[in-house]
C-alpha cells in the first residue's frame, strides 16, 4: 500500500530508504518544509555547513572515502548558486552526489520571485542529470531515479529542484524498486572479443605499461583488488593519474609513481616509450598527455572506460573496451590464466632495466637544509609519521597538492581525496569534514596551501560544531605558489598579485574558531609538532612555514611532450614554446 505523506516527508523517506545516513546542508525559505520534516525524525543526520559550496565538497569527501553517494540539501537562489562550483567539481571528477535544492512555489517560477534562480538551467551543464519536480506524485520516483543515475555508469552529480508548494503537498510514496531508469542502462560488461584482442596484444608486448585512473576507484575496492592481481600475474609496470592514486599500492615494485604534468620521470618516459599502453579508467586528460601529437608515439593503446564518450575523445586508441573496469579486469584475468599467457621475459626485464635507469634520476629529490623547512620534507615527515595510522588525506589546489601526490604514498584506494578535473581551491577543508564524518575514528588531514585554505576556511566552524578532529596542515609559502611558478616560467618573473598578503595568524584563527593552532618553521621541530597535531583530539590548523620560492618539479611544461620534462630550476630557461604559453 502506498502511503500518503507530504513532499517534504517523501524526500526524507526516500533518502532513508536509499540508505543515506548523513546529509550536508544549509536552510533557507524554500526548503523550510524539508527542514521541518528533518526535525521530526531521527534516522537522518543533518550536518550544518557554513557555505553551500562546503556542503557539496563535504559530500564529495564523504562519497569518495566511502564509495556511497553524498547528499546535499540547499535552498533556492543563492543556496543553489553557491553549490554550483561543488557540482561542477563532482561532475569533472565523477563523484556521485544527490543535491536537493528548494525552489520558489511552482506558480511563481518565471516571475523573478524572491530568491528565484533557474536552477535546472544553471546546473544542466554541470550535472549528470537534473530534475524540476512540479508534480508531487512524481517526487518519490524521481528521488529514487536520481540515486540510480548518480551511481550507475560514470558517476556524477544529480540535482533535484523541488518547489516549495510540492514540499507541502501530499502525495503517494513509493519505495525504491529495481526499475532504475526507463532507458538509461550503461554497459557494464565489456565486449568479449575486444577483451580477447586486448589480452592477445598485451601478451605479445615488449614494453607494456598500465596507466590507471579514477575509474578504478569509482568502480569500487574489487577493481583495485583485480588490478593488483592483474599486475601480479603479468608483471606489467604501472602508473596512475592524480585521481587514481591508491588503487595500486605505492610500495609495489611495479609502481612508477604518478604520471602527467608533475608526474615522475620514470612514469612519463615509460608512457612515451611503451609499446602497449593499457588505460584503465582514465581519460587522456591534457594534464596527462602533454603535447597530443607527441603522445606515446609508438604504442598500441587499449582503453577501458565505462563512458563511451571518453573513447577517442583526445587520443585515438586501437582497442576500446566500454565497460566497468572491475568486470573487464576480471575477464582479462580469466582469459590470461586460461591461455596461460605470458609476456616475453627477456623483453620485460629489459624494459624494467630501462625503467630502473629512469628511476635512478631520483626526480623527486630535494635538498633539505638546517634552517628552512622544504615543502617536500614536510610532506615526507607527515607521511612517515602517519602512514601506520588509519589515515585519509584531502588537499587544496596548488603546489602543495602536487607535492602531496608525489611524496605521500598511498597503499589503498579511497584514502586520497583531491580536486583533479576542476582544480578547485577550497575543496580540501570541507572534504575533510565529510571524510571525518564517514570515518569518525580515523586521522583525516587536509594538506593545504595558505591561499586555498582561505577559500572555505569557515568550514572549521562546522568541524568544531560536530567535534570532527580534522587536521588542516598548511604548507605556508606566503605565495600562491603554483601561480608564482607559472609566472616565473612564463611571464618573466613578474609576480602579479600572487603574493599572499595580509595573511591571518593561523594559530589565533584556529583558537578563535575553538580549535587548536600549531606553528613550526624549524626543520628540527617538525616531527614533534606533527606528533602533537596527531595527538590532539580536536580540529587543528597547523601552520607549517616552508621555503617560499621552491618550485614543483618534475614538470612537463604546457605544450611539451612526455620526454621533454623539466627536472629542476636549471632546465627552465626558454622551456615553454609560444604555442605552449596559451595553454593552461
Amino acid at each position: 500500500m502506498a502511503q500518503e505523506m507530504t513532499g517534504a516527508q517523501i524526500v526524507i523517506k526516500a533518502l532513508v530508504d536509499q540508505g543515506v545516513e548523513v546529509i550536508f546542508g544549509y536552510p533557507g525559505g524554500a526548503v523550510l518544509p524539508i527542514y521541518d520534516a528533518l526535525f521530526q525524525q531521527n534516522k537522518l543526520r543533518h550536518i550544518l555547513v557554513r557555505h553551500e559550496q562546503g556542503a557539496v565538497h563535504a559530500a564529495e569527501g564523504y562519497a569518495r572515502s566511502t564509495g556511497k553517494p553524498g547528499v546535499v540539501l540547499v535552498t533556492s537562489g543563492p543556496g543553489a548558486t553557491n553549490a554550483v562550483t561543488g557540482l561542477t567539481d563532482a561532475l569533472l571528477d565523477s563523484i556521485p552526489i544527490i543535491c536537493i535544492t528548494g525552489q520558489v512555489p511552482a506558480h511563481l517560477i518565471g516571475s523573478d520571485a524572491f530568491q528565484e534562480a533557474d536552477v535546472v538551467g544553471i546546473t544542466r551543464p554541470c550535472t549528470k542529470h537534473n530534475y524540476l519536480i512540479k508534480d508531487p506524485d512524481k517526487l518519490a520516483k524521481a528521488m529514487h531515479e536520481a540515486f540510480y543515475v548518480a551511481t550507475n555508469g560514470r558517476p556524477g552529480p544529480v540535482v533535484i529542484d523541488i518547489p516549495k508548494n510540492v514540499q507541502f503537498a501530499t502525495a503517494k510514496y513509493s519505495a525504491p524498486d529495481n526499475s532504475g531508469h526507463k532507458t538509461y542502462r550503461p554497459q557494464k560488461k565489456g565486449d568479449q572479443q575486444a577483451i580477447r584482442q586486448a589480452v592477445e596484444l598485451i601478451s605479445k608486448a615488449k614494453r607494456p605499461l598500465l596507466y590507471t585512473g579514477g575509474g578504478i576507484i569509482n568502480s569500487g575496492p574489487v577493481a583495485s583488488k583485480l588490478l593488483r592481481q592483474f599486475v601480479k600475474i603479468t608483471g606489467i609496470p604501472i602508473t596512475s593519474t592524480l585521481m587514481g592514486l591508491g588503487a595500486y599500492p605505492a610500495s609495489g615494485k611495479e609502481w612508477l609513481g604518478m604520471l602527467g604534468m608533475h608526474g615522475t620521470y620514470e612514469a612519463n618516459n615509460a608512457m612515451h616509450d611503451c609499446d602497449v599502453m593499457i588505460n584503465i579508467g582514465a581519460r587522456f586528460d591534457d594534464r596527462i598527455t602533454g603535447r597530443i601529437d607527441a603522445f606515446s608515439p609508438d604504442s598500441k593503446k587499449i582503453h577501458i572506460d565505462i563512458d563511451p564518450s571518453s573513447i577517442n575523445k583526445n587520443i585515438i586508441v586501437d582497442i576500446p573496451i566500454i565497460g566497468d573496469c572491475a568486470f573487464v579486469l576480471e575477464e582479462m584475468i580469466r582469459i590470461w590464466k586460461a591461455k596461460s599467457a605470458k609476456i616475453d621475459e627477456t623483453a620485460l626485464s629489459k624494459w624494467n632495466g630501462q625503467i630502473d635507469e629512469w628511476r635512478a634520476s631520483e626526480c623527486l629529490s630535494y635538498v633539505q637544509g638546517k634552517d628552512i623547512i622544504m615543502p617536500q620534507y614536510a610532506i615526507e615527515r607527515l607521511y612517515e609519521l602517519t602512514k601506520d595510522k588509519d589515515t585519509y588525506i584531502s588537499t587544496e589546489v596548488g603546489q602543495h597538492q602536487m607535492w602531496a601526490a608525489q611524496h605521500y604514498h598511498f597503499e589503498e584506494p579511497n584514502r586520497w581525496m583531491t580536486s583533479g578535473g576542476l582544480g578547485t581551491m577550497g575543496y580540501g577543508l570541507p572534504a575533510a569534514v565529510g571524510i571525518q564524518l564517514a570515518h569518525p575514528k580515523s586521522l583525516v588531514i587536509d594538506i593545504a596551501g595558505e591561499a586555498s585554505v582561505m577559500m572555505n576556511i569557515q568550514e572549521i566552524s562546522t568541524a568544531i560544531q560536530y567535534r570532527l578532529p580534522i587536521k588542516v596542515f598548511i604548507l605556508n609559502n606566503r605565495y600562491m605558489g603554483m601561480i608564482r611558478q607559472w609566472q616565473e616560467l612564463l611571464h618573466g618573473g613578474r609576480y602579479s598579485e600572487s603574493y599572499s598578503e595580509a595573511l591571518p595568524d593561523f594559530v589565533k584563527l584556529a583558537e578563535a574558531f575553538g580549535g587548536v593552532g600549531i606553528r613550526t618553521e624549524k626543520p628540527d621541530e617538525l616531527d614533534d609538532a606533527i606528533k602533537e597535531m596527531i595527538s590532539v583530539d580536536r580540529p587543528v590548523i597547523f601552520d607549517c612555514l616552508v621555503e617560499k620560492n621552491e618550485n614543483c618539479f618534475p614538470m612537463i611544461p604546457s605544450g611539451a611532450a612526455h620526454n621533454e620534462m623539466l627536472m629542476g630550476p636549471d632546465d627552465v630557461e626558454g622551456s615553454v614554446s609560444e604555442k605552449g604559453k596559451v595553454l593552461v
Partner: protein
Amino acid sequence: MLHSQNIESHTLSVLVDNEPGVLARVVGLFSGRGYNIDSLTVSETEHQKHLSRITVVTTGTPRIIEQIKSQLGRLIPVRSVIDLTVMGPPLERELALIKVAGRGENRVEALRLADAFRATVIDATVEHFVFEITGRSNKIGQFIELMVPLGLVEVARTGVASIMRGKEAT
C-alpha cells in the same frame, strides 16, 4: 584538431524522452562543446510513448561527429542516436515559406521560377507573393537565391526532417 581532416555534414536522428528541458540539453551540449548546428527540428512523434525526434544536421571531422554522437548518447533522456548519413543517403525534406514583393517583369519571372521549382502560391496581392516550397535544403537554398534580385522580402524555413529509406525503423 589532431589531423586536419575533411569536414563532413551528417544528419543525426535523436530519439528522446519527451520531457521538459530535453531540447535545452541537446542544444546546450552543442554550444557548450563547440559543435555546429546547421539545422535543427524537433517534435513529438509518438505521444503514447512520450517520444520526440530531434533531427540535427551538423558538420565536423569524422572524429568530431563520433564525439557528438557519443556525447548525445550520454544524455540521460536520449534513447538512441542514429547517424542517418552513414546508413546511406537519407531522405531529407524541408519546407520554406518565401515572401517576394515586386511589380512587372520581376513578378512574372518569380512566378515562372516558382513553377519550375514546384513552389505554390499561398498568399498574394498585386504587389507580393508568398511561396510554399518543399524539398531538399539545397534546392530551397537555390530557389531563395534566385528570388533575391526579384524582390525577396523574408524567409521562414522549418529545418530538415529526415528518415531512413526502406521498411525498417531506425
